[in-house]
């Protein structure tokens, strides 16, 4: 089994999914979260083995914020440099529900073929 092919497939899948997962995490969270916290939540959800590397979420968070899907504020921290806390915007929420629909549709479609329930 070629490991690099599996990794490439996972990477291609992640391209759009990271943004979807980040929006979902921030939508579920009652309070604002900063990068490290979000990374840890993803890690915990998957029993320590994250589907994507935590280092890849920071640039995506910034892109989402630049696109107006997240707002951010900087809060000074006692233990280090100031932290940037993110919160989902209304625009981000409506995009999330749209994307979730697409995701469910895609998942159902793919599953139908993989599990053979199609015939």
């Amino acid at each position, binding site marked *: 089994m070629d490991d690099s092919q599996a990794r490439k497939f996972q990477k291609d899948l992640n391209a759009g999914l990271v943004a979807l997962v980040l929006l979902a995490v921030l939508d579920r969270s009652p309070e604002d979260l900063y990068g*490290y916290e979000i990374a840890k939540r993803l890690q915990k959800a998957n029993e320590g083995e994250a589907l994507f590397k935590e280092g890849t979420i920071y640039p995506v968070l910034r892109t989402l914020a630049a696109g107006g899907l997240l707002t951010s504020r900087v809060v000074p921290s006692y233990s280090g440099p100031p932290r940037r806390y993110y919160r989902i915007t209304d625009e981000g929420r409506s995009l999330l529900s749209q994307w979730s629909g697409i995701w469910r549709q895609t998942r159902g479609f793919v599953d139908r073929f993989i599990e053979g329930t199609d015939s």
Partner: protein
Amino acid sequence: MSANAPRSIDEYLKQLRAALEGQDPALIQDALYDAEEYLRAEVAAHPDKSETDVLELIASTYGAPEEVAAAYRDTEAKVKAALKTPVPAAADASGWKRFFGVYLDPRAYTSIFYMLLALATGILYFTIVVTGLSLSLGFAILIIGIPFFLVFIGITRVIALGEGRLIEAVTGERMPRRPVHPGPPAGWLTRIGEMLRDVRTWTTLLYMLLMLPLGIVYFTVTVTGLAVGLAFTSLPFLVLARWLGWDSNATFSDDVHIGGWALSDHSMVSALILGAIGVLIVTLLMHAARAIGRGHAHLAKALLVVPGA
């Protein structure tokens, strides 16, 4: 895991920097900031483990330096493509179209705005640096000298980040979205030593000092160009107004003299010639502003971001 897996935060950052070699310095600064924030939080979250032990697991959580570098490169390329302002007046446009196409370029207007603002920010930056440096020297013999210097340099870093954001908004040049990471907690004297050794501290101060003369020049050029250009451009309309009798008292137009030319002569031909010169001046100013904006962005990047520092 590769043989040269990083065993300390510094090593990790060094490898990440190496993996991002050749990328935009502003992107490198952001990536290093994110990584340092994560790594320091991770080390702090595991007080029972040594930095080496924590770093051993980093490749499977945060990602190896090469992986993280690839993520930043990909995201940057995508965002750049998506946010790129379409440039009006394509390169194959005729000379006339290209000359007047500047009026359709938002960067020209934002650059004019920046050049007008530069006088105010230049005065502010210059004052902050001169005050901060002289008070730092004066306080150096007192106990408050050390914290004062730290706060002063901290302020210059915030200004550097803010000025970068402004320049990116005005010219589109990629500037950092994160400040320089201050590094691990350290004593005051260590901090000061680091700041004094950091090239960026000095280049930032130099930039802030330079902004005063530059601001004066930018402001003067813009105001003079706009005033002269718009005044000339308005002449044909003034002559027309006079012909139509809208200014019958001549309270306004009798006072208009440009060199030997007086508006009271009512010569439409000469007014039109001067008007055309006015349009030319304003258009040239727009081109100059756009070019100055671009040049200034490069200067700011060289002094505020400092590639490789």
